[in-house]
């Protein structure tokens, strides 16, 4: 079960999916942007600059979520030598990297009007930068190493070592004094310090970014499957 998969069967489904995902993405993004930019209220303290949150926070969540997925898939592919896990991880990584950069850039744009600085070497921001470096290494490793066995091993180990950084990012604002504010949403008790009228656009934009990641993933994954088919392999 872990050892083999049939690219043809998977491709039959994944090759049809992108157009539906694209449609759903455009619908959710449109509603999300209308909510985020027009319908949602301004913040009592930050006024309109709070709207950067609706891009910044979902982007950061998605980049962390994708990295965690890379790690789980890498553990699977490293231990069980499952090639499909490796291909899924390889296809997921680019959108995670893009959203990581988006989170850093929008954070910088948000930091200037609120904190008064573009960049601060505090624990949260620095650990997010370290995540981007891990993404960079991961993506480069896929390009550098030619040998199939070798590339799966090296990329898996990068993703597994890099996951140590994920809890550091999450709890950096609690463990140390940081310029970055603590989390607004407690993932265990689901208590939130964000007013409900602002949670709607935040949720919609998160869904839109997740759909976008899924779309890019499907396109990348289909390309990988086509590459396999062209080699005349029915199974790995």
């Amino acid at each position, binding site marked *: 079960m872990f050892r083999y998969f049939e690219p043809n069967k998977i491709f039959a489904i994944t090759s049809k999916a992108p157009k539906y995902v694209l449609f759903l993405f455009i619908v959710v993004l449109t509603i999300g942007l209308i909510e985020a930019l027009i319908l949602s*209220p*301004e*913040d*009592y*303290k*930050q006024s309109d600059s*709070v709207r950067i*949150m609706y891009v910044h926070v979902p982007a950061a969540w998605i980049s962390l979520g994708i990295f965690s997925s890379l790690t789980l898939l890498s*553990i699977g592919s*490293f*231990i*069980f030598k499952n090639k499909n896990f490796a291909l899924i991880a390889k296809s997921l990584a680019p959108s995670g990297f893009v959203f990581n950069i988006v989170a850093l850039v929008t954070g910088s744009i948000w930091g200037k*009007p*609120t*904190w*008064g*600085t573009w960049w*601060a*070497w*505090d*624990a949260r921001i620095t650990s997010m930068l370290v995540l981007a470096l891990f993404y960079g290494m991961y993506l480069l490793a896929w390009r550098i190493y030619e040998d199939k066995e070798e590339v799966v091993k090296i990329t898996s*180990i990068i993703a*597994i*070592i890099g996951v*140590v*950084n994920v809890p*550091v990012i999450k709890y950096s604002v609690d463990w*140390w*004094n*940081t*310029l970055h*504010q*603590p*989390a*607004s949403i407690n993932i265990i008790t689901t208590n939130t*310090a*964000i*007013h409900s*009228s*602002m949670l709607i656009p935040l949720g919609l934009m998160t869904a839109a970014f997740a759909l976008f990641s899924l779309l890019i993933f499907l396109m990348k994954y289909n390309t990988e499957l086509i590459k396999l088919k062209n080699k005349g392999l029915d199974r790995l």
Partner: protein
Amino acid sequence: MYGKKVKLRFLFLVLLLATVILTVFLILQSLKENVIYFQSPSEINSLIEIESKKIRVGGMVKEKSVVINSNEVNFIITDFKNEINVTYSGAVPNLFAEGKGVVAEGFLKDKNYFSATKILAKHDENYMPPEVKEALGVK
């Protein structure tokens, strides 16, 4: 159920993760002083000697402590246990206000007096529309 190689690879990952976690933990522990972005007035108060290097102090801007004359701003940073007087010449960020978070970067003259070269506003995790804030009855 699984082959010997699978078990060995699993063991390898467990050891790898344990090593990395331990290493990162030890590094962060020993770098604690450098990982924190700012010190609180209480931490400043417990300093044994005052160093001349640039540091950051953070806390709340004490209510009714901000005095602005010509191009100099004076205020008090408090953590509700200890306080420190800050003087700064220049423009403060928009979100700088009494009762709100602040981080001041600069030099410590003595335990109660800080000369800032840069002021950063630290905002909290609460987001709400102005009407809700008014309804809550806080200023």
